[in-house]
């Protein structure tokens, strides 16, 4: 089931992981630079709060550094770190006691796509913004699967490895998440759920 993940032909992180395990912080810094964006991106989509996302993403890398000896280097480093980030985010979400709906407002700007391409038309940007606004209103599990599949372009096997579920369930989750998103997008402006 996990063959595609396990049999990844290139293991570019292997040398850096080996050096970081010996205490070489420069090597670990290179690893952080390599995966900081997807890790922070996942945290931000799950937590919908930039300060918390940055804090949890930092904590993720700290935990990864301290647990490097337990990392199986035959597996993608990025997925391992993403799984740590996911668990920390879910822990934080569970600890949240108050409703976070008020935090969604600033997310409209925070989650605006930062694609650097010059040719993006203003209309397309607006569409994406509204899509991301609708995404931000979904549940954490839906946001997570959409972000990993479409934003980070990960395979269903990779997503399954991060989420700790069977790969066969990912497509169904994606459909359900997309359907919820479609319905949110159809709702009149200002109406949430």
């Amino acid at each position: 089931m996990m063959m595609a993940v396990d049999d990844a032909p290139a293991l570019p992180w292997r040398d850096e992981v080996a050096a970081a395990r010996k205490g070489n912080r420069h090597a670990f810094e290179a690893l952080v630079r390599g995966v900081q964006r997807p890790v922070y991106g996942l945290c931000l989509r799950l937590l919908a709060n930039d300060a918390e996302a940055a804090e949890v993403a930092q904590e993720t890398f700290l935990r990864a550094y301290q647990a490097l000896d337990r990392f199986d280097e035959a597996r993608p480093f990025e997925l391992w770190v993403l799984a740590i980030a996911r668990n920390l985010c879910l822990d934080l979400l569970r600890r949240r006691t108050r409703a976070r709906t008020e935090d969604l407002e600033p997310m409209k700007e925070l989650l605006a796509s930062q694609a650097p391409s010059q040719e993006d038309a203003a209309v397309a940007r607006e569409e994406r913004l509204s899509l991301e606004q609708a995404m931000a209103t979904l549940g954490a599990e839906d946001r997570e699967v959409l972000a990993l599949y479409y934003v980070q372009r990960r395979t269903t096997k990779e997503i399954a490895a991060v989420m700790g579920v069977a790969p066969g369930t990912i497509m169904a989750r994606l459909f359900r998440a997309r359907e919820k998103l479609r319905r949110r997008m159809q709702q009149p402006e200002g109406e949430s759920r």
Partner: protein
Amino acid sequence: MSAQRCPELDELFDAVVAGSGDALEHALGCEACSAVLEEHRQMEKDLYRVVDPLPPPDFVQSVMTRVAEAPVPLRRELTAGFGILGGSAALAGLVLARDPQVLDRVGLAFARVLVDGQAFVPRLLSALVTVWDAAGFVGIAACSTLLFGSLFGLKRLSGEPTISEA
């Protein structure tokens, strides 16, 4: 519009994933179901254009500061310690294997150290008493501080360079 009742969306999606099925066949002839699937296709196109936001500019620096402040995992310290020990033992073994007479010389040197050590201990005690008589507690404290300060400095020097040194 198909005369059949429209399938549940879960059923339709399962059929789409499978690439066949009654629900999919129904959808091909059903305006409403086709419209739903088309909306999903459009939404997928839009979703693929979304990108992850960039982390704050000082993100990596903040991570590395926390990493530098965090204690070194015990397992890593033990691994390094045993590595040094094993390396030293291997080197000693190699030297002994190349020149067996080294063992004789080591034995002689060890015996000499023991003999000299017997004379060294009373001399050391005598020196300490002399230092105590001459400088008292302050002198001993200053020497101890210097000694432990040097050891601490050596330990710090043997560690990884800090972020600011990078």
